[in-house]
């Protein structure tokens, strides 16, 4: 897991401060500063001079994010002169930084080179700043069609892309793209719902990745054979079902909220596409757990010892994934 070396802590702190700077800025220029700070402090976290794959991944990440930031700073100066074009450019560049389709091409290749800790950061914290910035733009007229385009194509590409994968990292990439589509649509309707979705998505994907990280499995046939006792298998299965949005688990709650909002705003066709695509993503989550929950054999092929942090996090994961359905009642109180 996280090895507590000093430079990593510094870079983590500056990563977070960059994101917060971008979120709480009042002009595009300070937003750009925050995004650049975020980018610059993420690169040392993922690059390593020993392996070729992580260094290649970090290079690709840097190039793509730098392109996005360049387009943002270009368009932010043009906002006074041609608002239509520049706001579309800003939203497109932010979609590029997020990894939403149709600009998602860098995302699988970058994820393939990282280890699980870096993946958690890439999937959750790195999405924070661009999403908030897009939400500031979502009330504008010119960005609606971009967000629509991004949402629908993310849904379809997230679903179709993940089916044919065996690498767990790529599966999580496409799942991230698919969840982005829900968030983009939520942004068009109601600001609160996408924040809820983002929070739940962060917690659930963190719990999923923490299980994979504890057993150090990177490919999907290996994920099943790492445990003898049924309890870790059950908990990891529940994590994945919650990520897929299966009803008694907490991943269903944000999808439910967004579905209801979309029906009330008459977004029927996009909702249909979103629901079908999340069905397909649910299929490939369940496929990961299928062998582990149906084969009962005491002779497993892999014997990996559990990392100590796993034991601490499994009650946390369970509570995240099981009690999410109580959130609407909390919202009523608020």
């Amino acid at each position, binding site marked *: 897991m996280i090895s507590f070396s000093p430079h990593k802590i510094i870079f983590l702190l500056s990563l977070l401060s960059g994101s917060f700077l971008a979120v709480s800025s009042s002009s595009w220029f300070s937003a750009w500063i925050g995004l650049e700070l975020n980018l610059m402090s993420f690169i040392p976290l993922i690059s390593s001079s020993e392996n070729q794959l992580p260094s290649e991944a970090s290079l*690709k990440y840097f*190039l*793509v994010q730098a392109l996005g930031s360049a387009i943002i700073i270009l368009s932010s100066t043009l906002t006074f002169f*041609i608002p239509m074009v520049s706001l579309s450019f800003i939203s497109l560049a932010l979609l590029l930084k997020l990894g939403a389709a149709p600009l998602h091409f860098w995302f*699988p290749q970058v994820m393939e080179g990282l280890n699980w800790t870096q993946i958690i950061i890439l999937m959750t914290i790195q999405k924070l700043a661009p999403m908030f910035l897009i939400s500031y733009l979502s009330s504008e007229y010119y960005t609606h069609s971009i967000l629509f385009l991004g949402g629908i194509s993310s849904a*379809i590409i997230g*679903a179709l892309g993940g*089916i*044919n994968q065996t690498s767990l990292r790529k599966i999580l990439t496409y799942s991230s793209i698919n969840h982005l589509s829900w968030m983009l649509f939520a942004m068009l309707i109601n600001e609160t719902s996408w924040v809820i979705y983002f929070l739940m998505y962060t917690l659930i994907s963190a719990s999923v990745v923490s299980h994979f990280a504890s057993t150090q499995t990177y490919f999907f046939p290996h994920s099943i054979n790492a445990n003898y006792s049924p309890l870790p298998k059950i908990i990891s299965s529940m994590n994945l079902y919650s990520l897929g949005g299966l009803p008694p688990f907490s991943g269903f709650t944000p999808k439910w909220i967004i579905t209801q909002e979309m029906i009330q705003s008459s977004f029927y066709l996009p909702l249909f596409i979103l629901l079908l695509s999340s069905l*397909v993503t649910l299929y490939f989550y369940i496929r990961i757990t299928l062998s582990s929950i149906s084969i009962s054999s005491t002779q497993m092929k892999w014997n990996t010892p559990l990392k100590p942090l796993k034991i601490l996090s499994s009650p946390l994961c369970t509570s995240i994934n099981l009690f999410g359905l109580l959130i609407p009642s909390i919202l009523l109180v608020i």
Partner: protein
Amino acid sequence: MMWGAYSHLVSLVFLLFSALGFILFSLVSMSLSSSYVIEWELFSLNSSSVVVTLIYDWVSFLFLGVVLFISSTVMYYSGDYMSGDKSYSRFMYLVFGFVLSMGALIISPNLISILLGWDGLGLISYVLVIYYQNEKSANAGMLTVLSNRIGDVGILLSISLFFMLGGWNFIFYESYLSGNFLLLKILVCVAAMTKSAQIPFSAWLPAAMAAPIPVSALVHSSTLVTAGVYILIRFSGALSGSCVQSVLLIVSCLTMFMAGLGANFEFDLKKIIALSTLSQLGVMVSILSLGFADLAFFHLLTHALFKALLFMCAGMVIHSVKECQDICNMGSLVTCMPLTSVCMNLANLALCGMPFLAGFYSKDLILEVAFMSEVNIFSFFLYVLSTGLTVCYTFRLIYYSMSSLSNMSSVMIVSENHSKMLKGMMTLSVGAVTSGCVLAWVVFPEFYMICLSVPLKILALLVSSLGALLGYIVNMVGSSTSLKTVKFYSYTMFVSSMWFMPILSTFSAPRWSLSSAESFFKIGDKGWSEYFGGEGGFGEVMKGSIYLQLSQDNMIMVYMKGFFIWIIVVFFIFI
């Protein structure tokens, strides 16, 4: 104390005492000419009331007494017959449940409560037929339960038709049913025909011989198959004067004849006895259709006693020759098993109508009454022929099993040292000998007036002796290709396979539905449904995924360049 191991003793004591008690009650109610009806109303639907009715008149008491007597001996007998079996206690509980269902049927004059006994009989007989869990028993059980199910449907439909009458106690409505209730009578007759295995539905009775011998002795000789005759006896007041009677007469005479003919060509011991049961059932239903219900009841009781005895002796024989049921492999059993041979001869001769044994009183009376009434010549000939055929196959059986030279294997131990089986058989043989005269004197205080010409009077005796001679001598042949049965094999096949009814009932009936179900399954469920459903959808998704993967198979530089150039172009367009 292990109840399972002693259940035969318990049932013997309990059932025997109940039987004696019931027979006593029947005598009492017969002498006092009284019957008790106990009713309990469940609910009433505007004008019809659903009640649970129990009737206690001499008919039900007597029938109950005889049934409990037979079942007590059969259960004691099965203490030895099924003694080595693993699920012996299950068997005993099932037989006891069967007896209870039969009791429920006997004492209910209400169509809804008779359904309880009727369905219970069908269900428990199915479970008993499939008791030995092999494929033959499975097929036999399926044939039994599905044939009986047709009768259940008949009763259910007649229950719904009884709404016209305002109640379901058919015993009180006999005089009201003449006239336009033809459908009701037809349905009840169909139900009785399936239960008593008359001609369209007679395939199940020989097939049900896959059950253990005590089951055959109790179920297929005296209780299950007589349920149909019993319901017709209770309905007999309603059936008189309707055209249903003529149909029943023809059908039962044909059954009588076909079964008698088929038993002459059969080589399986249990199937011969099953076909003889079928023939006697035809006799019962035919005399009932002529309007003499009490004669049918009389023959029912005597037949139950000696047929159960016959089955039990057959069971003893089969046990001794190491479970081989083919009579070609038996012979000269009279020297090895004297007591069994005595009981078996008693049962056989009672079946033939040997004077002053049980069968004589009932069967001879039936024949004379039938000859006296106005029957058509076809039924008359069938009566005469079937009587002769009955004696024919009986003597054939005696020849093959008991009096011929031994056809068993070279080293054989044949003994009858099972005391419980012997005691059961001897108890029933008392009934087989004395029940005819006792019942005749008790049930018919004034006899039927018989006035026949001399040829008709001695016709029965003549035909019987001719049949005996034929049945004994004709079978003293060896098998060779000059045998007429081998030369005209197709006719032999027709006669011995019960006029092809088993094949018609099992193969041809579901053929169309099974073939259409197969085509629905292969073309629909595994074909187009998959194409438009699971597998087709999966194929489409996979195609999309492959297309996506191919389109992403480029260097990042390509995409970045494309994005950047496009931005520049749009920028310059709008500047």
